[in-house]
């Protein structure tokens, strides 16, 4: 009797220990996160001031200057990539939602999954071959094409998933009233899924904002303010990469500042996406 009693106790102890281990390991993951955020804020906050956000970089080794060119470049890359990816992505998403079966549709679905898995550096090579070589110059456009390719799978998938949730009753009601198919999709189905689509778009933007690898040989970098899509531009992640790997403490400080700006922006995007998804979720 005694043995089985201690056996039970042992099992209970094991159970408790396991729970403790699970809790410990789960929260251990938060340590690096907190450290990263702590370091970015600690090293970045002192750098950020009006000049940092609005001035152009100074020549190497000189003090002062800012990241205005990279901020503008990043914005431009995002806007341009969105202009390419959103229409295509949403349309492809609608197509998949409407075309539940069929060879092309399942091909497109597979294709999006494949696209999602392609490493960003490889997409950079492709954008270099397609845009940079054929246009004869590095440009914001080539960077945006690379980023747009990375946005597509996210937008397509979220659009398809959202639109599939729209109940058939809505469509049937509309069609029964004599509304044409195209109008039904555009005026009834898409608007009811708008929040989901918007969430997907924001997540896609958050995904590409911090991308560096595909920009190395497309957007290329530019120390001046440039708003021309056919010219090279700088971007925050590129600048962080260049500054962080340099030997200049001055530039390290700038890299931390730029990192803080970038993280705040990306998290803002993610947060907005979440809020939109929660607040304006249309319940059927």
């Amino acid at each position, binding site marked *: 009797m005694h043995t089985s009693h201690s056996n039970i106790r042992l099992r209970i102890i094991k159970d408790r220990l396991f729970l403790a281990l699970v809790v410990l*390991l*789960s929260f251990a993951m938060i340590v690096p996160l907190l450290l990263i955020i702590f370091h970015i804020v600690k090293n970045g906050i002192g750098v950020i001031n009006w000049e940092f956000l609005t001035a152009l970089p100074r020549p190497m080794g000189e003090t002062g200057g800012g990241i205005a060119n990279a901020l503008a470049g990043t914005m431009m890359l995002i806007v341009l990539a969105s202009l390419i990816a959103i229409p295509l992505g949403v349309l492809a998403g609608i197509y998949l939602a409407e075309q539940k079966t069929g060879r092309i549709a399942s091909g497109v679905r597979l294709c999006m999954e494949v696209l999602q898995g392609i*490493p960003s550096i490889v997409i950079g090579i492709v954008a270099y071959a397609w845009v940079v070589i054929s246009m004869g110059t590095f440009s914001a456009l080539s960077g945006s094409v690379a980023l747009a390719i990375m946005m597509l799978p996210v937008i397509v998938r979220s659009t398809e998933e959202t639109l599939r949730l729209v109940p058939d009753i809505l469509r049937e009601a509309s069609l029964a009233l004599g509304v044409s198919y195209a109008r039904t999709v555009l005026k009834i189905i898409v608007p009811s899924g708008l929040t989901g689509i918007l969430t997907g778009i924001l997540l896609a933007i958050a995904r590409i904002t911090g991308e560096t690898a595909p920009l190395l040989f497309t957007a290329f970098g530019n120390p001046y303010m440039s708003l021309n899509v056919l010219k090279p531009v700088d971007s925050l992640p590129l600048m962080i990469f260049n500054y962080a790997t340099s030997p200049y403490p001055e530039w390290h400080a700038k890299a931390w500042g730029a990192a803080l700006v970038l993280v705040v922006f990306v998290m803002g995007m993610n947060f907005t996406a979440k809020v939109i998804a929660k607040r304006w979720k249309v319940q059927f």
Partner: protein
Amino acid sequence: MIKVSFDSIFKTVLKAVGVLMLLLLAGIFVTLVIDSLPAMKAAGFAFFTGTTWDPVFKEYGSLVFLVGTLLTSFLALAISLPFSLAIAIFLGEYFRSGLVSSFLKSAIELMAGIPSVIFGMWGLFVLVPLVRQVEMQFGVAPYGIGILTASLILAVMIIPYSASISSDVVNLVPADLKEAALSLGATRYEMIKKVVLPSARSGIFAGVLLSLGRAIGETMAVTMVIGNANILPTSIFSPANTMASIIANEFAEATDAVYISCLIEVGLLLMMVTLVISMIGRYIMHRMKI
């Protein structure tokens, strides 16, 4: 004049966009293959087996990078696995909802959102000095950068992915199975060990594969801390190079056609490796309907 209805235009446009997506992927693939042809011709099969990457004497063997990539990725996986499993059990079994779980979930989402260049920078300035101290203890060359550092950074980066997929899977384990185990007198730990993990095994495996695919393709964070040495690593402290980081380092500056082509072939190889791994992962997930 034939009147084309708006409906048919609309349907055509939708279909055209769908086809365009197919063409896009095909185009990416064809571009990489065509641009790799000179390399395939010049280096042949030795490209996959050679361990010397020597642009001066024009010898291009990419095995070093394949080894570097697989080593860092699998090491990262090994490091991250206990943590992501713990999170999966935490969120999927112990604390399915409530304040603690939504806190942990937010932390995971936050982590997934941090750009890789920032992980790289943090690694370079914070993790590298720490690893260096460890290396001093072990009496190996205190570079601080190398495979171990890259793997640690990668591990931190992939935990959110494997954890969120695995916790979904753990969540899906049917309640009656678990209740049956509990009603037979099993403790929760025994129930998790004997029921939950075995039935969630393939889904967890899928999550692991997907995060592995991500680790393999990761470029910036790795480039910044791996040491960029084109040699076969001799220990986990050695500097190395991965397929993605060699492209990031050398693509814009490769000077002759075969050299560039070889880098593109590395890109093609990288894409194929990630695709095979993530496709297996997705196939398993589809079968499980996650």
